């Protein structure tokens, strides 16, 4: 190390030898442990979840397929919003574009599904490139511009009937498939989706810990400093945006073939907002948090729906959970933001570690900090 020759003081008695540093592979292993653990968890899931589904009245595997799809798009949104700090309330647009691309290519042009989904990614990326100029905006402006973007895409999906079929939607979309094999069983779909999702998760968790990920996080924390450190801020933002669009497209493509029927109303602003909710509840700047958020938001209604069956007779209002689902989600979001702005996963980790840092009572008048 060339470091400290010449200087007048070397205070810490540093030797010239190689400094004590933690071997890199330790960190790699630890990160991968989580990934490997999760992969195993998913792979064995049907084994215990299928027998459990019936007594619990919660269709675990069936719901997990969708969780996988949402996890993919939520992770993409988290890269953009949690890591790079760029709010998007229009992520549903890319999801919709991806879904329609693959659905139309496979039903009208006759593409095989395994070709349709990559095309969905490409088209979503193309839209990402076209819409990237909104990234010039910041904060609230960006939020509203992306919201508007979502509305525009929704209206065009609905109105361009010659292409999209309008409100009639696209139906009889083929099942998911790999070359020469169509996947029709729930379990098959579960594995298909989750293998893709785990690959995406693995790639994304690598990415956030790499040069690119650091640049993203840096520009989130201070654009000026990041720029001054040689990070081409607008280029990085743009790429993250396109990447998140691509993941939206991928998830949309998978979604179309899972649902096999899509119409524009499935891709309205509400979808974008619930995606944001997933990211926020799961935790910004946390790849795994997004999976958790997607899981929570998707399973919560199922859980409440199952309650009557566990408890026998329940009051009517409990049975009509979906009527006030919004109230519960709204309260969860608000409480999360007030008490655990870093999301539930991180908030819980902090609580478990008895670290009060992120849990200062925000209602207190004076913050002596």
């Amino acid at each position: 190390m060339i470091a400290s020759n010449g200087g007048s003081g070397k205070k810490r008695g540093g030797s010239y030898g190689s400094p004590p540093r933690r071997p890199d592979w330790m960190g790699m292993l630890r990160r991968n442990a989580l990934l490997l653990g999760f992969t195993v968890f998913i792979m064995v899931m049907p084994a215990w979840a299928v027998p459990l589904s019936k007594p619990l009245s919660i269709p675990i595997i069936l719901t997990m397929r969708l969780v996988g799809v949402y996890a993919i798009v939520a992770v993409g949104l988290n890269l953009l919003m949690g890591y790079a700090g760029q709010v998007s309330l229009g992520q549903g647009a890319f999801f919709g574009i991806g879904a329609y691309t693959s659905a139309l290519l496979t039903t009208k042009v006759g593409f095989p599904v395994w070709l349709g989904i990559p095309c969905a990614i490409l088209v979503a990326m193309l839209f990402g490139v076209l819409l990237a100029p909104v990234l010039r905006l910041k904060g609230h402006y960006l939020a509203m511009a992306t919201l508007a973007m979502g509305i525009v895409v929704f209206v065009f999906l609905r109105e361009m009937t010659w292409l999209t079929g309008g409100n009639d939607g696209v139906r009889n979309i083929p099942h998911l498939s790999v070359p020469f094999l169509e996947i029709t069983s729930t379990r098959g779909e579960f594995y298909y989706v989750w293998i893709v999702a785990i690959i995406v998760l693995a790639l994304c968790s690598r990415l956030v810990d790499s040069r690119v990920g650091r640049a993203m996080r840096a520009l989130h924390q201070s654009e000026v400093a990041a720029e001054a450190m040689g990070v081409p801020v607008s280029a990085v933002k743009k790429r993250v945006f396109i990447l998140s669009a691509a993941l939206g497209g991928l998830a949309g493509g998978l979604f179309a073939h899972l649902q096999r029927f899509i119409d524009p109303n499935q891709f309205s602003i509400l979808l974008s907002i619930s995606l944001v909710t997933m990211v926020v509840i799961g935790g910004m700047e946390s790849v795994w948090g997004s999976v958790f958020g997607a899981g929570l938001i998707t399973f919560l209604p199922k859980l409440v729906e199952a309650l009557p069956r566990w408890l026998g007779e329940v009051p009517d209002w409990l049975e009509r959970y979906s009527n006030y689902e919004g109230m519960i989600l709204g309260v969860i979001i608000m409480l999360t933001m007030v008490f655990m702005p870093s999301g539930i996963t991180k908030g819980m980790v902090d609580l478990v570690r008895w670290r009060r840092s992120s849990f200062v009572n925000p209602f207190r008048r004076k913050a002596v900090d």
Partner: protein
Amino acid sequence: MDFLGNCPQYIANGLANGCIYILVAMGFNIVFNSTGIINFAQGEFCMFGGLLAYTLAASLGLPLPLAIPLALASTAIIGAAMERLLVYPLRRAGALVAIIATIGASIFFKSLGRVLWPKEAYKVPEFTAGNISLPGATVSRQFLWVFGLTILSVTAVYLFFNHTKAGKAMRACSVNRFAASLVGINVMRMSLYSFVLAAALGGLAGLINAPYASYSMGLFLGVKGFTSAVVGGLGNTFGAVTGGIVLGLLEELIPGFLTVVLGVSTGYKDAVAAILLIAVLLLRPQGILGRGVVEKV
């Protein structure tokens, strides 16, 4: 040409909608000025205004002159509660957190609205029924109320901000929050007032937007109101007037043109505000008047 012949009607309709947008947009601006956040739940205040007026006037049978102030006051209380319970604790948080928190509030309010008022629409009593024929256009009598009340509200807000102590203090907070606290203004209290005022304006927009109100009107009006605020220059309280009128007119003239002249589907009407919003944000973020603030790094 038919289109030109229809223009007076389009303009009258555009003005009527524009007035509503102005009220919503002013709410956005007032809150933005005093707290620096965009309240995504602003549209839901309109919902509360309209539906509370329905409940008070139509269900409980209160006379309108009593029901309307009560509805406005209740909406203002909801606004105050939101500020105390959500915005105040987040006063030190970043934009992202604030955005998401107000989105949460908006989801909550909308859902609450649906539980309390589950039907697809309610008829809010009109102040005066009937209509007036003008050359080339027919407008409802309610339109006169909308127009009059909007002018009244804009004037009242103008007077409030320029000629009352509390109003000047709120302006002072938006100009220079630091100096405001130095002269003894309780800045957090002003944030509360701004929410009260914005909620009341939103409520007014919701209830004069009669005769129909529903739980789902929030997003619709919220987006339009925000677009108006941006078009007029965000943070510029009276830019909202320009913005609202521009958006209101464009929204009626463009589909009119599309259908009557080009014969294209008017379903695209929904996209007018959204496209205008993106265009203004990208091309002229300070608003078409150019006096608004542009968010700093």
